[in-house]
């Protein structure tokens, strides 16, 4: 019980510090470009799970739009590109941002690359890992105006409350529970992790976070 309270205060403290922390230098280029609209193109997948790319794409719109940007409809964009012979996302990622953005009238393009999307099975536990890198390029200059990386790990250990590890261990264990879903050998559910990665990477407040867009209710930070 006491440990839970300790954990909660830690979580709240972390949350508050995250809200207050800013590193303008990382956001300078983005703020100078000041995009209103962001085109999210299909995801490049470096993992061996072929379904990962579309699943990751489904988690990108909400955090971006909630930070105040116009986000182009990701499924429409994906289908338009496919109809145009651009179903290979690595081809899309290596295309000129300026030309790509011009097709849709976008101010900037978000490129997502999945670095990790895997499950490791040990005797008593299963570890799921999802990791991705994010890069926003400006339509006008073709250059990178913001980048970030995030990774989330879920370890299940047969249902018992994992002991040991002190406060750090407790914290890690509970954060994992917060995003936990049933993890089975047959079909591990990566989506809670994928969404966590997406929110973490595209969060506006921590130092390397994305500045708020024009529709955000608060002033730009």
């Amino acid at each position, binding site marked *: 019980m006491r440990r*839970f309270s300790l954990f909660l205060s830690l979580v709240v403290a972390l949350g508050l510090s995250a809200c207050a922390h800013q590193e303008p230098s990382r956001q300078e280029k983005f703020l100078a470009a000041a995009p209103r609209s962001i085109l999210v193109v299909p995801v490049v997948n470096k993992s061996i799970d072929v379904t990962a790319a579309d699943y990751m794409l489904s988690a990108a719109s909400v955090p971006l739009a909630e*930070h105040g940007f116009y986000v182009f409809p990701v499924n429409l964009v994906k289908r338009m590109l496919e109809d145009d012979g651009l179903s290979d996302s690595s081809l899309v990622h290596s295309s000129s941002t300026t030309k790509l953005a011009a097709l849709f009238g976008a101010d900037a393009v978000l490129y997502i690359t999945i670095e990790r999307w895997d499950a490791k099975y040990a005797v008593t536990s299963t570890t799921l890992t999802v990791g991705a890198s994010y890069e926003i390029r400006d339509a006008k200059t073709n250059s990178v105006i913001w980048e970030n990386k995030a990774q989330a790990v879920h370890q299940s250990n047969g249902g018992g409350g994992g002991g040991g590890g002190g406060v750090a261990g407790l914290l890690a264990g509970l954060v994992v529970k917060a995003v936990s879903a049933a993890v089975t050998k047959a079909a591990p559910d990566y989506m809670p992790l994928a969404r966590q990665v997406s929110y973490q990477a595209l969060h506006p407040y921590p130092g390397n976070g994305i500045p708020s867009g024009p529709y955000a209710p608060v002033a730009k930070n």
Partner: protein
Amino acid sequence: MRTTLTCFASAICLSMLAGCGGHTLYEWRGYENKLYDHYKNPAQQQEFTEAMKEVVLGAEAEGRVPPGIYAEYGFLLFEQGNSAAAIQYYKKEAARWPESEMLMEKMIAVAEKRFKKPVAPGQPAVSVPPAKPAAAAPQEVSR
């Protein structure tokens, strides 16, 4: 007790993830989940279209339609051959979000071309037989 606390902890974490606030800017109605379901079962187009209809109507009722949602739904209607209804939703997207105007003009032009005779404004949605999704607007992307 333990469950309640875990739930509480989860709720705190999630609300922080949602942006230090707790309430969202838009009414999403499970859009992320519905998109995920669609990618999991791509053959179920009809179900996805119905699911997106719920998103649009629910968000509209709350007056907080997220960016891209009218167009996303409109495109599904277009893919199912209902160009007239698709055009109506493209127009809604363009009217609500000026950032989408250029793309919506393209999408409307493609839908009108397939619909053959232009649609009178306010005309109710007409079902036409499903057609092959047109190779829409974008031309060529080169390095």
